[in-house]
């Protein structure tokens, strides 16, 4: 397997305290510049898999991000490298204003407040939301919230973006705008979605999760066809 | 039960502000020892939950309904220090954004509902909640009941101390209303705790354990406060009446105008309660009985 994988996962196993075997020997690689769609039924282990990538959960097996093994002492570095955009933007936009929220990550990286707000402003510009910096997140539309949530992650200057069901609360124009935005972002992406059309438009390939393991890989069309996933 | 500004005399509100500030400070320190800042969202979101719970009405018969106040419930989930912090935050937001309770009177409202109300709500659970299933149910009910009753009585006493006129019949009615709303809070708290535990038994804390001594001290303090309140009330029936009116009316005002949700079903506490005014005198007897019972329990705990 190529050494340059941004995400490298081998033989990952995880069992919840209630005994459910959520991950059963997963192997996965994400290469620089790639966008990979993660498909599969609810409860197949997709979210559990994601939560291992930045150490929110830890099971058995090997995971490394940009060559750094995911373990307790590397977590600050790992969490800067891999940015998570959560399904529900309300869970991610918890600070009182858009600017405070986008600066949250940079401040955690130890940046001075002035630098952090500069970084936040730049990230907001990148997603086209610089006009909203003084607003309260709950006054934004779903599409705007998603953009701000992405800005909050971009402000950490990550190498990888992980997007969990980004289209859930979006109307068709919001969905289209998100697609355009994501296409402009140079980071490698991991896209978990039920929206196969969105995955086809954005992802280079797909993996299919079922019962805690990857059961198919290939182009999005191929995987969707093979797994009856349309 | 939120006292607005302009009602308490300066010595009363100032003394209670001075009393509440270090008490809240202590609660914050104890909370920080137990929860790191990463748990602030949990405290905040559960605060928002208690706030929003006002929108869910519980039928109590004769066409009326009530809602959860929540101090005791929060204490069962978060422990008393964190519950006090959350209730303080809620009261501050109610005072600022909803004009429900005053700013200078915040010390009084925090003392009544966030400090004493939460402690008194937590105590029965802490003392007996670790026992059998029935004892636990009774403890949960008693916590909700005591929490609301003691907060309301304290408010009544503070108003009376401030010289707000309170004729005896009105005080009697108010106490009756307090007892009814306290019973309702006990019932709602118990029903909600049971429903929460069917979803996930881990949500509610395990009662008993290491804090028993502290709990006993707090219970003793609460009994003392309640006793002072009752003695005061019986010595100054006028004051008591006034307190009752104030509290009952405040509930009404809250329902009609000051809740965050204007479409909230108003009128339950007020008119129906007033119609039930006959229960007032019985209520007073009940309060005295509860206090005596509490005192006996404390005595037994001490001798054990």
């Amino acid at each position, binding site marked *: 397997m190529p050494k340059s994988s941004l995400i490298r996962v081998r033989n990952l196993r995880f069992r919840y305290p209630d005994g459910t075997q959520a991950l059963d020997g997963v192997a996965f690689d994400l290469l620089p510049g790639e966008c990979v769609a993660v498909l599969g039924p609810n409860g197949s282990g997709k979210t559990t898999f994601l939560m291992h990538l930045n150490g929110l959960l830890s099971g058995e097996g090997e995971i490394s991000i940009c060559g750094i093994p995911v373990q307790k002492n590397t977590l600050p570095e790992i*969490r*800067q490298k891999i940015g*998570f955009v*959560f399904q*529900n933007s309300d869970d991610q936009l*918890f600070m*009182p*204003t858009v600017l*405070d929220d986008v600066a949250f990550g940079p*401040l*955690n990286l130890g940046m001075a*407040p002035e630098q952090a707000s500069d970084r936040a402003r730049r990230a907001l510009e990148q997603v086209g939301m610089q006009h909203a910096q003084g607003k*309260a997140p*709950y006054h934004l539309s779903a599409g705007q919230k998603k953009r701000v949530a992405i800005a909050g*992650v971009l402000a950490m200057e990550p190498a990888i973006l992980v997007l969990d069901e980004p289209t859930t609360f979006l109307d068709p124009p919001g969905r289209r705008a998100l697609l355009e935005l994501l296409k402009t972002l140079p980071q490698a992406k991991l896209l978990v979605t039920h929206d196969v059309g969105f995955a086809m438009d954005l992802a280079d390939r797909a993996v299919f999760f079922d019962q805690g393991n990857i059961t198919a890989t290939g182009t999005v069309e191929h995987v969707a066809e093979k797994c009856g996933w349309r | 039960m939120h006292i*607005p*500004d*302009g009602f308490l005399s*300066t010595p009363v509100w100032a003394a209670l502000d001075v009393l509440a500030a270090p008490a*809240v*400070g202590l609660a914050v320190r104890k*909370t920080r020892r137990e929860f790191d*800042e*990463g748990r*602030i969202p949990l*405290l*905040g*979101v*559960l*605060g*928002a*939950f208690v*706030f*929003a719970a006002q929108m*869910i*009405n*519980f*039928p109590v018969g004769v066409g009326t309904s009530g809602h*959860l106040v929540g101090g005791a419930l929060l204490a069962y989930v978060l422990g008393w220090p964190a519950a006090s912090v*959350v209730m303080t935050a809620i009261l*501050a*937001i109610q005072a*600022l954004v*909803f*004009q429900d309770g005053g*700013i*200078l009177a915040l010390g009084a409202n925090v003392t009544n509902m966030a400090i004493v109300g939460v402690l008194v709500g937590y105590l029965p659970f802490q003392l007996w909640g670790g026992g059998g299933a029935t004892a636990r149910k009774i403890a949960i009910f008693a916590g909700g009941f005591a929490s609301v009753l003691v907060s309301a009585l304290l408010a009544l006493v503070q108003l009376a101390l401030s*010289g*707000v*006129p309170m004729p005896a019949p*009105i005080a009697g009615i108010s106490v009756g209303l307090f007892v009814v709303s306290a019973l309702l809070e006990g019932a*709602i708290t118990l029903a909600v705790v049971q429903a929460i535990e069917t979803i996930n038994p881990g*949500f509610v804390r395990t009662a008993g354990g290491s804090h028993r001594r502290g709990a006993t001290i707090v219970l003793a303090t609460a009994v003392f406060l309640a006793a002072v309140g009752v003695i005061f009330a019986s010595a100054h029936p*006028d004051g008591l009446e*006034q307190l009752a009116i104030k509290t009952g009316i*405040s509930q009404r*005002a809250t329902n009609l105008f000051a*809740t965050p*949700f*204007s479409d909230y079903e108003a009128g339950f506490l007020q008119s129906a309660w007033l119609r039930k005014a006959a229960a007032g005198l019985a209520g007073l007897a009940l309060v005295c009985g509860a206090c005596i019972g509490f005192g006996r329990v404390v005595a037994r705990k001490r001798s054990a």
Partner: protein
Amino acid sequence: MHHAVIERWSQGHSFLHRRDARAKAAALLVLLTAIATAPGLPVAAGSVYFAILIFGFAAARVPVRGALARAAAVLPFSLAFAAIAAASGDPARAAILPGKSYLSALAVLLVVATTPLPKLLRGFEGIGVPRFLLMVGQFVYRYLFVIAGQAASMRLAASCRGGFGKSGSAHKTRFSAAAGALAVLFARSYGAAENIHRSMLSRGFEGHFHLLRNPRFGPADWTFLLSSVAVAVAVRGI
């Protein structure tokens, strides 16, 4: 919803909106104390305070009539007490109770209508309120918008099925239906809190909130604070 309206008012750009939250918080406390401690609150002083507050709303371009109506939330409570006071032969108190409580509510409303709540809460940090408590308050307020929305939709869903708030024959069932609804709301809130915590950790949170700095307390803020204090105290002497 009430808080959404206040929130909208607080987003303005007037002179009052632009003042530092600490200046407004401090001025508010002084004004409230002046009102509360004024013995008897003469009609003249009360009217001047009232006029100043009205001027404040108008200057901040907050709808005056709406503000007056919202501050009236305290009136049913105060008027009832006033009626009791009047009935028990204390007409002076009967006049003072509603007067003081209404003026105080109006003053609080003026500050809240010109200062977004999170800023105001941070302003209180300058007066020594623990940041931990203020952060909890900030989260309560932030998620009130989310959880109240969920509660509203649950209530709607319940009323489509006959509601749990109305009395009826099966009233025990309705009671436990309401308890069940609250338990679901509780579990959702708890789940949301856990997701928020995860999203904080994912952005490098290591146990401590680092905040952007408060803006500088400028000369205009000093001027505003000192003159409000002077006016509040002077009017009290009328």
